[in-house]
């Protein structure tokens, strides 16, 4: 989605107001949970739906 929007993750982190360290945790999949406010901010910044950035992988 970031590539589609031609946006760097650092820029996105700045827009949604989280640190780059947290951004890398989010991207690497280490995050245990995501706040609705963060999800909302990401969707707003990337102009997309949660389903575009979330994917269920059978474990």
């Amino acid at each position, binding site marked *: 989605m970031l590539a589609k929007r031609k946006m760097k993750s650092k820029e996105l982190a700045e827009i949604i107001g*989280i640190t780059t360290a947290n951004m890398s945790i989010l991207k690497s999949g280490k*995050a*245990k*949970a995501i706040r609705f406010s*963060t999800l909302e901010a990401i969707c707003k910044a990337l102009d997309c739906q949660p389903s575009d950035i979330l994917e269920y992988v059978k474990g």
Partner: protein
Amino acid sequence: MLSLNNNFNIMIMKENTNILTIITWVILLSLASILLDDIRQFDFNQFKEFQNWAESADKNESWFTSKNAIKWSYYVISAALFFFRGYLIYGFSYFLSILKEIEKGNYFSNNNIRSFKKIGNIFIWYTINVFVLRFLLASTRKSTFNFFNELKEEFTFLIPAGLAFYILAEIFKQAKKTKEENDLTI
């Protein structure tokens, strides 16, 4: 404003841990000096009496009930009691490592959990061992050992204290888990 408030809190916490560290050091040093003084007064030269044990022993008497053996065991038990007092002081020294971690801002670290468990272990082991040694000491003096009277002694209070530290370690373990989860919520 929030970060200012946070910095202020950290400053107060640091000051508090400094005070607690000083108090812990004072307690540790005074306990150690009392122990050393007691050891000095105990006069370990008494052990020299037993160097010629075999010569002075009454051959007709059985080894176990001989006067020498009883005296010797009395001194050994007293020495063991000193050792366990030192062990308890060692246990107290773990408070310093906990305070150090808190000063660094690592409240729920693995080190703290380990230290709490160790303090609990040392408190409980100290009490059990001192209890057994006092029983043995009473038997060498041929005095009666009253189980319930011994339980009333101050040192047995260290058992609930030890258990409390075990519980604290368990609480800290849960807190660490929760903190990790909180840190990984973005």
